[in-house]
């Protein structure tokens, strides 16, 4: 039987166009990023300088761009710089966000997966709908909601929980509310996808064998949804680490994350080599959990064999 395939020139065109685009706009920029992170800018404002000795042609990489991230220049104290602090804070917020999304999203996905089959598409649609409306505007709304005179504080005072407004905005609270709010759908969708495929008769079997609901849930449901939990966790964690908009709108000076630090290093301090070095390390923070993720999914696939 004839197999549909394009003739050679067509095939070359189909592969070539996206390939060229990606090399030009992804690979090349990334290599430039890597290059600049080793440049010694000196007092020059022009970052495109050779990283080799122009006379001998020997490579001359400026590792100091990276070292200065880990070592304080005044007293050589290791790991006690604003950069390390910002990295750790970003990872911490991303972890907290992923955990909060899991705690809120797991029961939610579970209940949707167990609702009437005819209801499920509508419920999922309702999860997706806010996702399609501007992320920026939805974050911005929280600024009004959490303000000192905002509706949350008004409600708390009306309920008599507090007499004067609690500072919610520009704190850890507003940061985590905003980040959880934005990334919750990324947790719900993969969780739902695994939970809806689960055979709930397994739970009944566990009950029949005398397991308490909690034990059955912990020993049957949770392990069966493991892949969804991991996928959701990654989908929330990875974009959260580099979050730029939410700390700018809902965070205070105490809540600066690494994305903002890269920006400031680039446009305020004009230290391009350090900004790029910070970005390169940031990529490492994304690649390591991803590698673990692929490793773990590859392993579980092997186990099933």
């Amino acid at each position, binding site marked *: 039987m004839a197999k549909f395939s394009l003739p050679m020139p067509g095939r070359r065109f189909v592969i070539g166009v996206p*390939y060229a685009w*990606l090399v030009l706009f992804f690979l090349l920029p990334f290599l430039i990023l890597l290059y600049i992170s080793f440049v010694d800018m000196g007092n020059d404002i022009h970052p495109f300088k050779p990283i080799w000795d122009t006379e001998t042609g020997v490579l001359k990489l400026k590792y100091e761009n990276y070292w200065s991230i880990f070592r304080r220049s005044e007293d050589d104290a290791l790991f006690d710089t604003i950069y390390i602090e910002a990295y750790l804070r970003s990872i911490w917020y991303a972890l907290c966000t992923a955990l909060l999304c899991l705690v809120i999203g797991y029961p939610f996905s579970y209940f949707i997966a167990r609702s009437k089959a005819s209801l499920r598409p509508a419920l999922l*649609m309702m999860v997706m709908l*806010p996702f399609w409306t*501007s992320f920026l505007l939805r974050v911005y709304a929280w600024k009004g909601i959490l303000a000192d005179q905002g509706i949350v504080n008004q409600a708390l005072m009306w309920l008599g929980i507090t007499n004067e407004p609690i500072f919610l905005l520009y704190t850890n609270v507003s940061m985590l509310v905003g980040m959880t709010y934005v990334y919750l759908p990324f947790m719900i969708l993969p969780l739902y996808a695994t939970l809806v495929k689960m055979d709930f008769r397994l739970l009944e079997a566990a009950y029949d064998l005398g397991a308490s609901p909690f034990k059955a849930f912990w020993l049957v449901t949770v392990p069966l949804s493991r892949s969804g939990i991991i996928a959701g966790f990654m989908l929330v964690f990875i974009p959260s680490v*580099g979050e730029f908009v939410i700390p700018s709108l809902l965070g205070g000076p105490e809540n600066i994350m690494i994305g903002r630090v890269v*920006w400031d290093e680039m446009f305020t301090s004009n230290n391009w080599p350090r900004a790029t070095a910070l970005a390169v390390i*940031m990529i490492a923070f994304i690649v390591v959990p991803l590698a673990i993720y692929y490793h773990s999914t590859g392993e579980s696939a092997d186990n099933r064999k």
Partner: protein
Amino acid sequence: MTSLLHRHISKLWLGMVFLFLYMPLFFMMLFSFNDTRQDARFTGFSLRWYEALTRDSRIVDGFWLSVKVATVTGVLSAVLGTFAAFVLVRYRRFPGRTVFSGMVNAPLVMPEVVIGLSLLLLMVGAQNFLGWPPRGMLTIIMGHTLLGMAYAMVVIQSRLMEMDRSIEEAAMDLGARPYQVFFLITLPNIAQAILAAFLLSFTLSFDDVVISEFLSGPGVNTLPQVIFGYARRGINPTIYAAATLLIVTVTTVIIAYSVWVARQTRRREREIAAAMRAETTALA
């Protein structure tokens, strides 16, 4: 007893999470009609913020720029995404395939700050050595398309993978040329996914702040950039008005798209049924 309790808890939890997801939207829609700057108390109905919106030239200019950028990005992303999906699904073996699939997927996990920064370096470098392109609309479109293409590829790839290839083979056997097969069989089959990819990358572009902030030039500001600038300064109900218009538009488009998809599916089912009937009568 437990199941009754379970049902109540489940309803309560679903309700609470939906409240959480929708509160900001309803909040903005309500307070866009407020007649004062008050954020916590609705003092009276007015359209003054909508009026302010139409008179704010920065918002209006930003809106039109965003529409242009998002439209071009959507089209480019859908085309490149279709190409990329085709390459990944249909061409199992060609030199550099691993690199290719890595490069298509990478923008999905890269922090936007890193994408913006590296593209900025590319543009600055190009400007130094070639004197082109100037930072502005063009550079923003290039940046958005890098991201949009990755998302478009994912959407189209999944449709292409579940597509029944035997129809293509049937067309080939009936003597169709490869390009005829593509335009008459393959393309109509994945058209829905291409439209979804266009909508997704349009939305991503229309919503993006970070990449635009890195790549835009002086005086060139997309709508999200203008809003971001206002938002950092404090509460401004004009933005609520803009948000309300956006929410209404998006909801309408999504409902229209769902209706269109449902109608397409029904029409195809009817056509298949009709074809089957015709076949049985012909045989009889």
